[in-house]
């Protein structure tokens, strides 16, 4: 089977993957995919997604093949379609990231080997969503009835769109905090609300006093026409140590990383900072995903 979009997964299936990752993380289980090959095809930069896919594969006994667009026949004008059809013959499962939305779905449609989406443009990043849900459940012990605040550029961040969907599915209370003009697409929110009865609050100023989880993403300067406005918005949305005085003591701060300047470095050492742990959960979670897609 393929894993392309969080929309393709039922709640039961997500729980199965999270439970499996939990057993792997606790050392109670180790998927055996010995003799299989994972190909990682990343058409845009990545640190965590690619490396944790490769690490997960190696820990499952797999071997990995890495594709580099810079040194491939893409430079000679080869199409994405032909590249994928070729690699199909070299690997047993493909993890793909591509800047164009829908590219990974196209890959899954044209080959018979399992395909996992490592991020397609501003559309989906389902394994990141699974890591986020896993991290929340692991750190807070539950997802239902938790107050989860998502803060940053909610218009362009694919991780946020997928995460809202996942949180809504598990009954969390969601608050969206974003600068004006960088709000999450309202038709998407309507769809999620209609499907899962999500009760969502929206704010344009940083506020997270009642949050159990604060999930932060980057505000990119290039989204603003005026560099001065970009700096001022970034400064306003930056989380500083002193801002956490009014927050819940057991607040968990998550971030898909890379973080640039949206969280003050001094917060890294605080117990609330859970983002590096979240990044490390990428390995057991992706081991569970590889097992899930290879065995179906």
């Amino acid at each position, binding site marked *: 089977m393929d894993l392309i979009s969080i929309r393709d997964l039922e709640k039961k299936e997500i729980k199965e993957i999270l439970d499996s990752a939990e057993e792997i993380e606790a050392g109670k289980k180790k998927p055996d995919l010995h003799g299989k090959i994972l190909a990682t095809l990343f058409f845009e930069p990545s640190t965590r997604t690619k490396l944790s896919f490769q690490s997960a594969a190696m820990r499952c006994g797999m071997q990995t093949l890495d594709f580099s667009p810079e040194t491939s026949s893409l430079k000679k004008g080869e199409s994405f*379609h032909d590249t994928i059809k070729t690699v199909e013959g070299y690997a047993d499962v493909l993890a793909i990231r591509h800047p164009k*939305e*829908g590219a990974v779905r196209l890959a899954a449609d044209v080959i018979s080997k399992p395909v996992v989406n490592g991020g397609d443009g501003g559309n989906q990043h389902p394994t990141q969503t699974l890591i986020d849900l896993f991290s929340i459940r692991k750190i807070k012990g539950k997802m239902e009835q938790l107050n989860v605040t998502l803060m940053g550029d909610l218009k362009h961040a694919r991780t946020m769109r997928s995460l809202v969907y996942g949180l809504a599915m598990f009954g969390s209370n969601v608050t969206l905090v974003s600068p004006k003009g960088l709000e999450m697409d309202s038709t998407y929110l309507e769809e999620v609300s209609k499907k899962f009865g999500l009760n969502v609050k929206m704010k344009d100023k940083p506020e997270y006093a009642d949050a159990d989880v604060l999930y932060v993403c980057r505000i990119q300067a290039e989204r603003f026409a005026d560099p001065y406005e970009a700096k001022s918005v970034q400064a306003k949305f930056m989380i500083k140590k002193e801002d956490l005085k009014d927050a819940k003591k057991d607040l968990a701060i998550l971030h898909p990383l890379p973080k640039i300047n949206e969280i003050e470095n001094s917060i890294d050492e605080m117990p609330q900072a859970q983002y590096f742990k979240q990044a490390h959960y990428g390995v057991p979670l992706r081991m569970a995903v590889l097992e899930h897609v290879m065995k179906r």
Partner: protein
Amino acid sequence: MSTLNVDTIDMGTVVDHIKAGKGGKVLEILGIDKDYKHRIALVMNVASKKGGTKDIVKIQGKIVDDKTANLIALISPGATINIIKDEKVSKKFRVELPEKLDGLGTCPNPNCITNIEQCKNSFTKVDGANYRCHYCERKFQADELA
């Protein structure tokens, strides 16, 4: 009230009850351009018996197929297609929004892979007159796809 007379056609298609203002787009969907050799009539903003105004298109020498009818439905659901043979209506049907569009329409999202790679578009009707692109997963109004 003055009358506007348009010649009858002996073989071709009449598209009636087109949403007012969309007649030009129907010609575009039918692939009619300045090089088309036969007679064409585009009548815009005429009174409709059902109330309001409508556009009508008459094309000599072109028979609309089901695929094209689906595209017309995207911009004007409820339009009627009359296929004319030997000056008589040989088939008449009303176009309706299809549940699925395969290999038809264009995704309006410039960052969708379908606008970069050669592949068959696919849209599924999700609610009312809205469709979701199978690839980029975005939702669009039907008339944006034509």
